[in-house]
């Protein structure tokens, strides 16, 4: 008998039992929990990978991209024989864009499923809510994949997304050269923009620019005429935006309608990726500059064959779904899983301390946007960074910086 992949299964009864087991497990654990075992069985116990991400709620689109890429990577590892000869079993929990729901669900991963590693969380408030459940009381390894404000220097927490230094150090001098010296920092009122702006302000002032406006708005604000008016009156050259959806779409539209770009103003937004560009019409975000670890345009130019292959595999399996992009933690999720794989291979077991010691200097030679390596003792990773500028609704990469240091911890 063959299973759906065409591979011969050795014992029919075992296959049947296994299927029955995980189906009943899925029923027993209720909605929001998914267990996907490897498609082959082994004498050894599976290694359990916990994914805790926002499958539902306001940032559900990002969470689904995270879960999609995790399934893709884990299937790929399993198809190549697993890790240490053991298959990977993926346990997915929904953190539901809601910290109190998340804590309960992540506890299930730790206490009920006894996973060997947890990857996930997108917002910083989510990371802060679930990190103690995982690394403190849970005594488990935690990998956080999203670009964020930095300053997470806790042992056993490894961050695989870009930090403020990686996003600002190259971009801000470029903005001063290609926009001007007068900066406005309109921002959503939560932790990431506050801390990122602190760093950005330092870089702006050290590069000869000045911040003429720094303002914070309620997260659900959609009317920005007062802000736009101040930006126009203050003769701002560069808008370094950290307003998030739903506000960012109307904000950029109102800025366009006030004639900011027409006057020569430069727009910048460091999380604006290919999943968020649909928020605005092409003429509204023309000239917007972003700095991320990956852009989809890299896959079209033919100069990054690995990124192209990965994007093709993702698009084939999840066509019509949310895209694989940098701004929603999906590239960090890929990096996190592969770095962890390398670390487990080196450690030779899944013991937390052994894996953490190996992960501390883990490297991968290819990934979305290029290779990556952990900076020993810093819990953050070096990666390639790209500056891209919008032209007629598409990003164009205009600058590449190889293996930028995270400068954290």
């Amino acid at each position, binding site marked *: 008998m063959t299973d759906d992949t065409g591979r011969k299964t050795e014992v029919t009864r075992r296959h049947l039992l296994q299927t029955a087991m995980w189906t009943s497990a899925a029923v027993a654990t209720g909605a929001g929990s998914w267990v996907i075992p490897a498609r082959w069985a082994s004498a050894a116990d599976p290694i359990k990978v916990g994914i805790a991400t926002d499958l539902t709620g306001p940032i559900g*689109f990002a969470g689904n991209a995270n879960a999609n890429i995790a399934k893709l990577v884990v299937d790929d590892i399993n198809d190549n024989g697993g890790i240490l000869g053991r298959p990977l079993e993926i346990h997915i929990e929904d953190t539901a864009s809601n910290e109190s729901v998340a804590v309960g669900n992540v506890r299930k991963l730790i206490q009920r499923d006894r996973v060997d590693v947890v990857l996930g969380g997108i917002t910083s408030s989510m990371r802060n809510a679930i990190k103690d459940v995982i690394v403190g009381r849970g005594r488990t390894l935690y990998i956080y994949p999203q670009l964020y404000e930095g300053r997470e220097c806790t042992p056993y927490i490894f961050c695989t997304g870009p930090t403020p230094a990686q996003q600002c150090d190259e971009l801000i001098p470029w903005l001063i050269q290609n926009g001007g010296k007068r900066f406005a920092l309109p921002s959503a009122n939560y932790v990431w923009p506050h801390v990122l702006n602190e760093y950005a302000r330092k870089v702006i002032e050290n590069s000869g620019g000045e911040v003429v406006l720094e303002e914070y708005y309620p997260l659900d604000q959609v009317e920005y005429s007062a802000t736009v008016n101040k930006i126009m009156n203050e003769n701002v050259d560069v808008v370094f935006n950290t307003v998030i959806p*739903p506000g960012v779409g109307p904000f950029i539209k109102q800025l366009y*309608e006030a004639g900011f770009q027409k006057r020569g103003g430069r727009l910048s937004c460091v999380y604006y990726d290919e999943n968020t560009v649909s928020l605005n019409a092409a003429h509204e975000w023309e000239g917007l500059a972003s700095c991320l670890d990956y852009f989809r345009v890299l896959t079209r130019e033919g100069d990054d064959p690995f990124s192209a292959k990965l994007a093709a595999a993702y698009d084939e399996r999840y066509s019509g779904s949310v895209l694989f992009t940098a701004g929603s933690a999906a590239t960090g999720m890929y990096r996190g899983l592969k770095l962890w794989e390398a670390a487990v291979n080196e450690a030779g077991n899944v013991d937390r301390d052994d894996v953490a010691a190996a992960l501390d200097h883990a490297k991968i030679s290819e990934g979305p946007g290029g290779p990556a390596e952990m900076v020993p003792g810093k819990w953050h990773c070096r990666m390639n960074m790209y500056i891209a500028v919008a032209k007629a609704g598409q990003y164009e990469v205009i600058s590449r910086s190889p293996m930028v240091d995270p400068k954290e911890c």
Partner: protein
Amino acid sequence: MESVLTIGFNILSFSSIIVLVVLGLGVIASMMRIFNFAHGEFMLLGGYTTYLFYIWNMPIWLGILAAPFVVAFVGLILERTIIHRFYAAPIVAMLGTYAIGVMIRESVRGLIGGLYHQVPEPLVGFFVIGDISVSKWRAVVILVTILVVSGSYYLLKKTSFGLRIRAALENPELARVSGISTSQIYAATFSFGAGLAGLAGAMMVPLFTLYADMGVRFLIQGFLAVMLGGIGSFEGPVLGGAIIGVLTAGLPHLVNPVLADVLVFVIAIIAVKLKPAGLLSMRRELK
């Protein structure tokens, strides 16, 4: 000077949006004594209808025209099947309409994949008068609001249909004795209020972004406006909406935006404390 004109135009256009939102809410609250917590989701449905026309490559203005009718139809069906059971119990009505709202919101969230979508304006861009630039679509929103408010006023105050609605509200027994079918009137009024919400959603979705939670914030501001203006009259909620709109768009010019957000509520609550029945309450309610 240019700056003052720009600020004035922006405040006027945002107030128009809030008035449009409040109008349907006010009609249902004033005429039927039901607080419709699904109002925000009716707006969402209006926005979603417009979005569907956009992705089906049909003219967007057609979507904006169709939205109020689609949502009015949905409102009619909901009234006939569910809402009409709530008239005797206003508290249950709040919970019931809230539940309907959650169902609509989560269904739309599923349909749009949880993403944020832009819908282009039927009139793109801005025109420049002197030194100020005016968004074309915002100008249209202001005009439509004026037309819809005066049209609704005419319908409710000057036509025999409006007279029957008011009669069914003032004294349902007497209205029924006089041969007016109050249940039909209620169904029509609810459907009309829902249609206005659909129109508001369709008009604002090109200005803002389509997302599942778009109705939530406007619903809260809408209720504040209805409380401020006073239930029972047509003018009350409209005036309340205009005031909330001016405060919301105007205060961030004066104080920091997070404070402004809270200040709108503080000012409105103080006003409601001073005039508990609303600024323009009907006299009989004051007795």
